[in-house]
């Protein structure tokens, strides 16, 4: 069980504002890991740093064995095919229909025949619980929950080792949110995934997470299993998990 993500001494600054200082955490292979904390604590920023969307100003980060401090363009492209990212609102390409959105990476990075691409896309749509009939629909024509599912199918299309989820259950009704939790657990089972997610949803946290990090005051104030975290003395943690 070597870590799939390891962050050491991360320093992030926006101008004079320090977002992270001496931030350390690690995510083990095969686990569902949560980034939790009050709003504005830099959870999403940290996730953006992990997926090479944003630079940190100090420290080191290692993702799937790639050192992000000295990664070359070629290595970065290789790494980008090993993870999938689900954005908060799906971030589907509005000029492509759902089918083409999902098939995009397959067409770009492989020479698989269209017949097999159709098989793969249909399978991924089925796994995430998306009706086959929305294939020809465009993103503007489907609901927010379906956009998330389509975004997830797109993130899974290359069978990634690592999946990043940004607030996967936000904006879903409670029933769909619980279904999404079950889906996340099922995906890990099926694809040997490691999953990192930013979330605020307490039910989702209890149902899915193996380990988590609480970000507060620019650093990780607690990391580990939920029980270990709940035992930590911190104002945010006690208010957040109150009564649980």
């Amino acid at each position: 069980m070597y870590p799939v993500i390891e962050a050491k001494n991360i320093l992030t600054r926006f101008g004079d504002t320090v977002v992270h200082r001496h931030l350390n955490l690690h995510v083990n292979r095969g686990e569902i890991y949560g980034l939790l904390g009050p709003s504005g604590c830099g959870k999403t920023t940290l996730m953006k740093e992990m997926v090479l969307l944003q630079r940190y100003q100090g420290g080191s980060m290692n993702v799937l064995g790639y050192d992000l401090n000295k990664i070359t363009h070629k290595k970065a492209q290789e790494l980008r095919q090993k993870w999938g990212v689900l954005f908060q609102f799906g971030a589907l390409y509005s000029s492509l229909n759902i089918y083409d959105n999902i098939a995009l990476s397959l067409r770009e990075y492989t020479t698989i025949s269209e017949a097999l691409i159709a098989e793969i896309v249909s399978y991924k749509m089925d796994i995430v619980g998306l009706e086959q009939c929305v294939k020809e629909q465009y993103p503007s024509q489907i609901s927010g929950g379906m956009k998330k599912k389509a975004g997830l199918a797109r993130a899974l299309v290359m069978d990634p080792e690592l999946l990043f989820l940004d607030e996967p259950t936000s904006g879903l009704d409670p029933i769909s949110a619980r279904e999404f939790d079950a889906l996340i657990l099922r995906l890990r089972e099926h694809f040997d995934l490691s999953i990192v997610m930013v979330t605020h949803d307490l039910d989702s946290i209890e149902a899915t997470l193996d380990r988590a990090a609480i970000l507060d005051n620019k650093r990780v104030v607690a990391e580990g299993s939920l029980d270990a975290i709940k035992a930590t003395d911190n104002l945010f943690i006690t208010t957040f998990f109150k009564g649980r």
Partner: protein
Amino acid sequence: MISFSGRTLSLHARVQGDTVAIVVSGEMSVKNIALIEPLLHQLLEHPLPSKIFEWHLHEANRFDSAAALLLYSFDEKARLLGATCRFYTNDNQQKIIDAVYRRDYQSGGVTYRPLGLVASVGTIAIKKYQSVKDFVAFVGELFSALMIYLLHPKQIRFKEIYYAIEESSVNALGIIAITTFLIGVVLAYQSAVQLKMYGANIFIVDMLGISVLRELAPLIAAIVIAGRSGSAFAAQIGVMKITEELDAMKTMGFDPYLFLVLPRIIALMLMMPLIIFFADVMAMLGGMVVASVELGISAQLFLDRFNEAVAMKHFWIGVSKGPFFGFIIASIGIFRGLMVKNDTRSIGVNTTKSVVEAIFMVIICDAVFSIIYTNIGI
């Protein structure tokens, strides 16, 4: 019989009596199954080598759902030909294969049927008709909002008008200055060569004065403003529509036509004549520089001749087009912004359209003015 060896993946198929044993080793994943996909079609070619395909996957150290789907579709085709597949796998691979076989959906791709000639012409015609209808409705709303402004002058949003004046006109003066100055320079320079040949140097003033004041300055100014401010209107309003800001305004009782649309249109109608005046000055300045450098006409002489030869009416004709151009540019920009649908692509489409349509309409309007002024003899 069939065999393939790549850097990361290899496949060997051997016929043993009634069975074909297929051994796959290496990385059997979405990234390289394309390498062996054609081989599988060969395996199923007639005459079918045997009735049973045995897949030995123990040496495939990476195996994902795409690989499992490849085997599934192979199995399906083999079954149609009366053959069967057996998989020899480890637990993990079996799990992935089982997941793929457990299906209650109809897989399939998307077919794109190109529209026929009649259908595409019809679609375009209906779209154009719809957009004309929408524009008429827009003008109607505009008129009723204007009535509210006129009947209740307290409703006039002066702050928004000032803001729009600054954003769309004052901040555009720099680019207007450069463009029109250069137009003046280019025009004078090109004519200077011709005029010199006839020794008609001084007529550069008449030529420049009339063409710039009457036609060129208004047109160039309008084109620049359409590209800069008309497109900005379309993009601003379009984004507000996507982020539901317009709906929020309506639910709070703020009529977007009073708060957003009319202030921008009024601002541009007020400012366009002034912008044209400014463009006149800059273009003549450009012409004056060239006249003095190329033709030896001093600034004093240039201005004297200008006073004499260019009647005031040319200036007024040019400036009088301003409010009309301003109305065309602002209303088309805003109309296009309001036409934005709930997806990001339509912002780009509508912004482009706003510029193209605004410039087109400005030129048409200019032509109409030409005809009218000529007919009434000025």
